[in-house]
């Protein structure tokens, strides 16, 4: 729409017909659309003669509603809106995942500790045993091909033996 119409749009919509309108098809079309729309919006006007009031006791009902609703809390945002509910569910799911991860990682962390304690105990035994200790350690290697934790224990024994 051209400036000369745009700047006076409210007057034009009220019925004024500036000269530019007779020369400009683009402005004419747009104004026609806006006028139709204005007429439609005016359909939302309350019918003439409409003088209804709310039923008697309106204020009391408003106060009842206020008491029922109570002060607006931040938690209402999570409870009342769908988006808030989704955020709450996602947060709970995340919390659960983190909890499960922490519990499982703690358990796996406990195993090496036990293994280290065991290896310390066997190292002590070797110190007591003296010269034939490497042979015993090697025999342990043969026996303890059962699992990674016992292998770790044997390796720890060997290292400890060299240091001795």
């Amino acid at each position, binding site marked *: 729409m051209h400036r000369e119409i745009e700047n*006076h*749009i409210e007057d034009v919509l009220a019925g*004024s017909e500036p000269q530019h309108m007779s020369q400009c098809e683009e402005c004419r079309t*747009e104004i026609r*659309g806006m006028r139709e*729309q*204005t007429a439609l919006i005016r359909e*939302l006007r309350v019918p003439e003669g409409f003088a*209804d009031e709310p039923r008697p006791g309106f204020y009391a*009902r408003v106060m009842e509603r206020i008491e029922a609703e109570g002060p607006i809390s931040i938690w209402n945002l999570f409870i009342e809106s769908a988006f808030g509910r989704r955020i709450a569910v996602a947060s709970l799911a995340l919390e659960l995942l983190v909890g499960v991860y922490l519990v499982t990682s703690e358990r796996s962390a406990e195993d090496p500790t036990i293994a280290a304690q065991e290896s310390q105990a066997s190292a002590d035994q070797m110190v007591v045993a003296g010269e034939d200790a490497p042979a015993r350690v090697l025999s342990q290697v043969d026996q303890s091909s059962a699992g990674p934790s016992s292998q770790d224990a044997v390796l720890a024994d060997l290292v400890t033996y060299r240091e001795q």
Partner: protein
Amino acid sequence: MDGSIGILPFPLAGEGTRARTRVDHKNSDEAALVRRVQARDEMAFREIVERHQSKVFSIIYGILRNRNDAEDIAQQVFAKVYFSIKNFDFRSSLLTWIYKITVNECYDYLRKKRVRKLVYESDFSQEDARRMEASEPAVDAAVPADTRLAQRDLILKLLSKVSEEERSLILMKEVEGHSVEELAGMTGLNENTIKVKLFRTRQKLLKAAGRLTRAR
């Protein structure tokens, strides 16, 4: 208005309208009433409800054309007013602020129902229809009621495509019949800002209508 608009001064650069429409909303009787409500004076709140209940009721009825819903939403509006009035900053008149809350509540209601069309098909009672037929002399009687309802449905849909502020402004202009000058006084904005906002809203509505027509 005559056809001399083309030679009028460029209004956006005009100075005459700017300061004239400033209204001091902080120092009116209404402001004193609002401050009492902000201090949780229930008598003051009652006064606000009684002063504005008819207006709020008729605004809602104008949009929804259903008395029961109008009553229910009017209660909700005043509950919102009660809880939010501590945030009222006196930049606009109280009525303008309540008007915005009212229109927003109507749109919340329509959105919750999701089926705006059904608002008129299921909730629109026969009595409402008769009353509407009988009490709208301004409307072309040759246009059937269902066509008018479809038109109202369309315009409500279009109005949902613009911002809350734009919606309130255009409704205050076209439905309530306020002039640009009055709107400036009510909102605390200057006249040129109001004109620009109204123009942009009208353009958005036209574009939305175009998109809707193409989609059908």
